[in-house]
């Protein structure tokens, strides 16, 4: 065994595999930095190359790419406040405030070192447990998976913000949104409003972009300034490294949770960052700085999301069961190369397995190394007026959306969820709680339904791992609830109280709209089979009660329930309607003229009107970003949908 491990290492360095690894690592950083583009998108761009490569080089490239996406995405999350990929959304929470305070370099270097350590932890754990990992995965049957999902759901309590009722209501909304499509138990069509477009359910990436990215863009464009409020950026790199070393325990714990959740197929690796963030907050003594720029938030999340891949490789390689979108594509790539994952990965193909583990470790080192070198320079981006950055971000998120389903209608879904996200952000409805509900809903429903069919209640309770996890979930819930209840919220000043009370009618809109949605869902579900409707009905009923409680609390002007970010003194010189029209205009242009012509038109208009840019600057911008995507698409032979009025795709053109 040690021999093949060494052979794999030597093999990696004595063949061209090492170059593919580096190429993959660099591509991964680019994909990570491009907003909302993650490992799955990167791998689908890479698959056309992979066919016909030798397995070691192909896997070195693929793993190299997947490993560094979660390092590169830190940059976007910290500096622009927009998740670089779905797995670093929670990095935004504390990383972005740090960047606003001129500490971008510190947050970045802490993030990179945590990423590196997390990635190495994942690789080391994988090596250490490789021979027993199969057995460990087999210990986690359907009841244990169910408990792991509940562990994820329990973190909603810690992420709800000041009002638990609001958190529960918005989490239930996420679940109802995710239960659109086919009911897993009965195969019935559910809540689709009769639209075929909704049969497959809502695409995750459109919801993530809508809820997490659009509101930030809107907010920053309205403020019309630079991201950092300080003209100078201190170095801070060394301080960031020291921060990580001071919080070794957080790194270790977060990386451990990341690997474990990653290793369980069907738990939801996509929300690991939020689970770990919730845990970091819960475990901290002084919680006052979280969300306002606490470096521990960045460290925890970044250690976990790089550790996920090490765990996720276990079910993918040893069972051929992928736990996420990106590992599903990795599995396809392996099959394309003529390798069937399964027990042979520990036997005949053990050298390839070790090549992948080495690639994982090396790519993390390469990725973090490159990023360290760049951190200081990249941080300067926070000194550029946001109006120059916004249009490029809008093009980037449109690309990320279109890349998944190649369906222009998804762009309008982004706008719809964007509008909801703007309200959630402004009125204190926890967006992480929404996302956890959205992502975990289908896994929770399936796993609940399967477990209840196969296990009796006592059979369920007599499983030791279930009991252990039950204890963990109960502790988490009790702790968070006690925290919630013991914190007395009061208004900061009498003037603040008056201002918050004044916008109550506006604040009431959201809970009342949610209550309406839940009631409508209950009504639409009534004709389905019991197994198809039972679960979403329960969720909608809980959501309805929570939304009504939240509405009542707002009506009674309870301090914990009142929240309106627009009353906190930030100046908004640009009216929201103007920003909304720009976003709508961008999506209409992209739909009408296709991605490339549409985004060129949009960029030109926006830069000319909003940024009053000179023609040469506009031309440079358009050629730069459209050229980058054109290059990516052309090289990988990927298509984007044609426009309604004009078909312009690189393949049709050249």
């Amino acid at each position: 065994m040690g021999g093949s491990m060494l052979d794999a290492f030597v093999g990696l360095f004595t063949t061209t595999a090492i170059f593919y690894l580096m190429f993959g690592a660099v591509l991964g950083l680019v994909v990570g930095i491009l907003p909302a583009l993650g490992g799955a998108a990167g791998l689908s761009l890479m698959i056309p190359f992979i066919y016909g490569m030798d397995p070691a080089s192909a896997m070195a490239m693929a793993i190299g790419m997947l490993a560094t996406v979660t390092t590169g995405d830190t940059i976007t999350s910290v500096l622009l406040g927009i998740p670089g990929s779905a797995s670093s959304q929670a990095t935004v929470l504390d990383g972005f405030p740090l960047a606003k305070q001129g500490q971008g370099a510190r947050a970045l270097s802490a993030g990179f070192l945590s990423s590196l350590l997390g990635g190495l932890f994942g690789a080391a754990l994988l090596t250490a447990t490789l021979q027993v990992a199969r057995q460990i995965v087999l210990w986690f049957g359907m009841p244990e998976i169910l408990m792991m999902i509940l562990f994820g759901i329990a973190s909603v309590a810690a992420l709800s913000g000041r009002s638990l009722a609001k958190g529960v209501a918005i989490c239930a909304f996420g679940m109802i949104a995710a239960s659109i499509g086919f009911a897993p138990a009965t195969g019935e069509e559910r809540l689709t409003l009769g639209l075929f477009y909704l049969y497959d359910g809502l695409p995750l990436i459109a919801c993530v972009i809508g809820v997490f990215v659009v509101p930030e863009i809107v907010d920053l464009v309205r403020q019309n300034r630079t991201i950092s409020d300080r003209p100078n950026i201190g170095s801070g790199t060394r301080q960031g490294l020291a921060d990580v070393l001071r919080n070794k325990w957080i790194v270790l714990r977060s990386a451990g949770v990341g690997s474990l959740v990653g290793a369980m197929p069907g738990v939801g690796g996509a929300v690991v960052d939020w689970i770990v963030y919730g845990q970091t907050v819960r475990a901290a003594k002084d919680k006052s700085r979280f969300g306002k720029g606490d470096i521990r938030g960045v460290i925890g999340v970044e250690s976990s999301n790089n550790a996920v891949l090490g765990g996720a490789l276990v079910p993918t390689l040893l069972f051929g069961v992928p736990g996420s979108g990106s590992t599903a594509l990795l599995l396809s790539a392996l099959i394309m190369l003529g390798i069937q994952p399964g027990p042979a990965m520990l036997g005949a193909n053990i050298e390839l397995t070790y090549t992948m583990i080495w690639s994982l470790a090396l790519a993390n080192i390469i990725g973090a190394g490159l990023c360290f070198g760049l951190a200081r320079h990249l941080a300067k981006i926070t000194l550029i007026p946001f109006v120059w950055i916004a249009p490029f971000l809008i093009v980037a998120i449109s690309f990320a959306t279109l890349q998944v389903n190649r369906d222009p209608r998804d762009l309008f879904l982004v706008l719809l969820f964007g509008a909801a996200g703007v309200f959630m952000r402004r009125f204190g409805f926890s967006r992480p709680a929404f996302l956890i509900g959205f992502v975990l809903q289908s896994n929770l429903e399936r796993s609940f339904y399967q477990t209840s069919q196969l296990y009796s209640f006592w059979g369920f309770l007599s499983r030791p791992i279930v009991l252990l996890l039950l204890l963990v979930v109960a502790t988490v819930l009790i702790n968070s609830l006690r925290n919630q209840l013991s914190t007395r919220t009061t208004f900061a000043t009498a003037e603040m109280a008056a201002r918050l009370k004044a916008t109550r009618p506006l604040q009431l809109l959201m809970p009342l709209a949610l209550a309406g949605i839940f009631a409508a869902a209950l009504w639409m579900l009534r004709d389905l089979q019991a197994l198809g409707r039972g679960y979403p009905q329960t969720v909608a009923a809980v959501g309805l009660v929570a939304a009504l409680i939240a509405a009542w609390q707002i009506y009674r002007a309870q301090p914990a329930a009142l929240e309106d970010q627009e009353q906190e003194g930030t100046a908004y010189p640009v009216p929201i309607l103007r920003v909304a029209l720009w976003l709508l205009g961008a999506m209409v242009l992209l739909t009408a003229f296709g991605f490339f012509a549409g985004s060129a038109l949009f960029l030109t208009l926006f830069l000319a009107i909003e940024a009053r840019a000179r023609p040469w600057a506009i031309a440079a911008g358009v050629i730069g970003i459209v050229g980058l995507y054109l290059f990516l698409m052309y090289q990988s032979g990927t298509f984007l949908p044609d426009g309604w009025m004009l078909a312009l795709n690189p393949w049709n053109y050249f």
Partner: protein
Amino acid sequence: MTLKSILFAGIGALGLALPAGAQDLGLSRINVTVPFGEGGGSDTLVRAVAPYLQQALTGNPTILIRNEPGGGGLPSTNRFVQNAARDGSDLISLSSSIFVASALGNPQIQFSLGDFTPVFVAPVGAVIYVSPSTGATGPGDVASIGDTTLIYGGGRQDSSDALTVLELSLLGIDVQSIWGLERGGGRIGFERGELTVDQQTSVAFNASVQPLVDAGTAIPFMTTGLIAADGSIVRDPVFPELPTFFEVYEQVHGEPLSGPAYRAVMALNIAALTAGKTIALPEGTPQPVIDAYTAAFDAIIANPEFQASTEASLGGYPLMTGAEAQAAFDVGDTMDDEAYAWLQDWYRTNLNFEIAR
């Protein structure tokens, strides 16, 4: 050296090994629509074939693979039938899920199998295996299972997974089916002992289930059998020692399966397995173009390089082109009303699921 030049160098090297006599279509570009995302089964097939197809056609036309995911592949297939050029420049890669949706009936489908002319069909075989805890002692041992209820886990009721439940229930075996499992979920559930019966394609079976068979924790039970071009059922060539479902049925009931149930099983079998991976031209393509593609694919299949490189992914099944492919296609074209009504009733009573067309 860019990736692309490496790729092209590879394609060039492969080209040297191909026999002469390329087919002339007078095209410089061929679009292959894949109604799914990158990395799926039908995408893999096309990417495996593309470099060889390029060499088999005069002028080595560029082959563009156009992935159009979403809606289970149906919207993209609808668009293809409507818009595809009939001069040989448009091909589509069809998969079992589209065929099954077409066989079961789906209001979103605006095509019938008659709208396609298959030029290349790669059949897939599947093995149904059971746990020793069911009482079974060997292949086809229905008697020892007796009244034991088998537990099966599948993806969706209107997918090829239903065929496994259908076959088991026709053998008179009690099956409890659990739905909503993810890709590979049935196999991992079987290994955990939560499920007691599962079905895998032969490729996945050899990689992941054979070790269980060797360890004595899984028993290969039967294959679904392949349907030859003349409509007869043959044993799976990869597992010649395993009986087909039809053989086991005859052994249990004393007579072969017949009537509407037979026709329904046949239609689903062809949709899910025999024609499961197909590359097709739109209907209405001129015969010379079809003939040129048939000759091109014949040359590809005969190429030992191609055979070696795809053995692992295609499982080593006999590949079909031209008239043979068309014949296999025709057997499964549409289920007659009686067979469909029988299947509808089976779905309702066994899976509590409504199908309609």
